[in-house]
């Protein structure tokens, strides 16, 4: 299976790779950049929502309420205002997202047990709005419960208990840190994007520069040429995978709970699809630019319909069906389960079978199309 012809292609490929700083940067630096971009910037965790407060009451009671908001960790009280106009301007300019109005008779009403406060939300950003809304409700609810139990303690009665209490347990990612979700996804994205681009351009480059003509007339067989051209990018892809796993683990604290062997095995299956697409693109394209465009037609729908950014469950049924034709969809399920949940093969067997089928079919079709000829 492995002969000197293949190894000399591999050696040549690495020589060229190390002499081409642009490609090398694409292969090694881009994964790190994407990792940090997506690990930090693409977070859906909403923290530090700027809050403007119009405290008309200015009593110990109202300050207690503000402390409760501060403690919730989701708001920072950035502005104290004295009129409706003021907080309206702050919300219009985006300096504040939420305004809290505490009426002047707040302490009196609180004693009567019917205090009301007003919360004004900027709904133009749905994510921030939704988080602010639910957090404000929670803060209000728990503050109310706290006051009730304090009053009960003062009057010597036992605290009334709520009729239903929902207790929550968050598994795998107790802090709901979105980096946990994103970083395994970055592995999938790199194995898809970088691998398809590198393999397609590496093969098309031979055609573009005319070197394919010299390769053709050597006695090397088509499959040896394909294997020799692809293997360096397999090695590179695994280097990238471990690069992301290691930085993910030690910088972002993303756990690696599953078996490393399973990670390698399933990543290998997924790689077959990517390499196959790259190879396929190289049989269509005549220039490196065409090759890039061709693999983009595969990569872009992959990213949006695989559940990388947007949850599949939230998509219309039709798009959910389309997503079944996208190998990355299965790999994302697998890699997230392996890293975060530490599952065994059994839990992900359907996805693994799907990856294997996609890999064999795509790679097979591409290899059949690949001809060691000029026409």
């Amino acid at each position: 299976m492995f002969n000197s012809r293949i190894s000399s292609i591999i050696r040549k490929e690495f020589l060229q790779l190390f002499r081409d700083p642009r490609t090398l940067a694409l292969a090694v630096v881009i994964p790190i950049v994407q990792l940090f971009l997506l690990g930090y910037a693409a977070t859906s965790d909403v923290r530090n929502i700027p809050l403007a407060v119009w405290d008309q009451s200015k009593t110990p009671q109202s300050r207690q309420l503000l402390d409760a908001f501060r403690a919730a960790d989701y708001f920072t009280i950035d502005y104290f205002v004295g009129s409706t106009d003021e907080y309206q301007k702050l919300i219009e300019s985006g300096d504040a997202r939420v305004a809290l109005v505490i009426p002047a008779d707040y302490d009196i009403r609180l004693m009567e047990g019917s205090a009301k406060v007003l919360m004004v939300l900027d709904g133009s950003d749905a994510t921030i709005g939704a988080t602010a809304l639910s957090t404000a409700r929670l803060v209000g609810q728990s503050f109310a419960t706290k006051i009730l139990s304090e009053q009960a303690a003062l009057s010597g009665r036992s605290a009334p208990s709520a009729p239903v209490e929902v207790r929550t347990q968050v598994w795998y990612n107790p802090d709901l840190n979105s980096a946990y979700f994103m970083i395994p996804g970055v592995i999938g994205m790199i194995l898809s994007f970088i691998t398809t681009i590198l393999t397609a351009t590496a093969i098309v480059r031979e055609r573009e520069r005319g070197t394919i003509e010299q390769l053709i007339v050597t006695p090397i067989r088509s499959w040896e040429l394909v294997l020799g051209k692809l293997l360096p990018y397999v090695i590179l892809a695994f280097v990238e995978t471990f690069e992301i796993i290691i930085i993910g683990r030690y910088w972002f604290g993303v756990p690696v709970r599953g078996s490393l062997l399973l990670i390698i095995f399933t990543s290998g299956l997924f790689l077959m699809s990517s390499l196959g697409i790259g190879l396929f693109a190289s049989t269509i394209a005549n220039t490196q630019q065409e090759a890039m465009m061709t693999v983009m037609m595969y990569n872009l729908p992959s990213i949006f319909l695989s559940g990388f950014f947007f949850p599949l469950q939230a998509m219309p049924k039709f798009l959910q069906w389309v997503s079944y034709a996208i190998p990355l969809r299965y790999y994302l399920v697998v890699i997230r389960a392996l890293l975060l949940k530490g599952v065994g093969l059994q839990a992900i067997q359907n996805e693994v079978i799907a990856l294997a089928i996609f890999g064999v079919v795509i790679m097979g079709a591409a290899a059949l199309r690949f001809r060691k000829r000029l026409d």
Partner: protein
Amino acid sequence: MTNYLVQANGIKKYFGKVHAVDGVDLNIKAGEIYGLVGSDGAGKTTTMRLLVGALLPDQGDVTICGYDLRKQTELARSTIGYLSQRFSMYEDLTVLENIRFFAEIRGLSATEWLPRSMEILEFVGLDKFKDRRAGQLSGGMKQKLGLASALVTRPRLLLLDEPTTGVDPVTRQDFWQLVIKLVSAPHFDSPTIFGENRGMSEGQGGGVSVIISTPYMDEASRCHRVGFMREGKIIAEDTPSNLRARFNNRVLELRGSPINKLRHVAHQDEDVEDVAAFGDKLHLRVRAGKTDLIMKRLPKEIESAGGKLTELRAIPSTLEDVFIALSEDQVFSSNPVL
């Protein structure tokens, strides 16, 4: 089996409606230098690519060293060295790395390739540049590198597709010396230079055969045989001297003044096929068998037109004359000039 190293029978290659190669037969003997000439677009490069199997013919077959190129492709290729028209070495690898790569994928072992490569680089005169990147070589050196890489596995057949196009005359000369040395010098096949001559059966003589395509007629005249291609066909094939002999006594040289009047008169003569100006001389190509007639008629015609003839004589034809005659003839198949 015949003793031909290359046999092509009726190969055809169409690109859509274009008949790039339209029924070419070739029989190349061992030790032969065969020149493929013709205008741009005549089908030379496509023929070369069909002979190495870079393209698959629509019809016909090719046998190289007894191997059927269609069925025993890789075996046939193992006997071929090919230098394509376009530079096809890796520009980001050094000279030696290129040679090594092509030596290895052609099956030379780790112990074999280095001595062999150094030998070849010395042979083509690139040994001093072995660590230079191929992209930084001059045009002539690039061609020598291509030749070296084609030669490193000691092919029995060398296909050179316009190897000297765009190369300066001195390097062209060098290049041809290498080709001739390769084919004719007996020591090149000896163990001291090229190792044992594997795969060669006794009595074939000569050894390496070369098929070279060229637009230069001085190069064509260095070949043992020349095939003229036009519109995908080989329309004439012979040794350079035989080709020239077909035009013996059919090229006249003319001097006199005014040169434009002489030219005009010659053009008017129905038995003059072509008039070409060479400085202060005119070369006329005349119809076969009409030379004597024209030699008598033309001076009178010039005189009556008011011109002055100082010299008129038959000169030996050149391959250039043959080439132009073959390229210009409108209906070469039904009414051949030769």
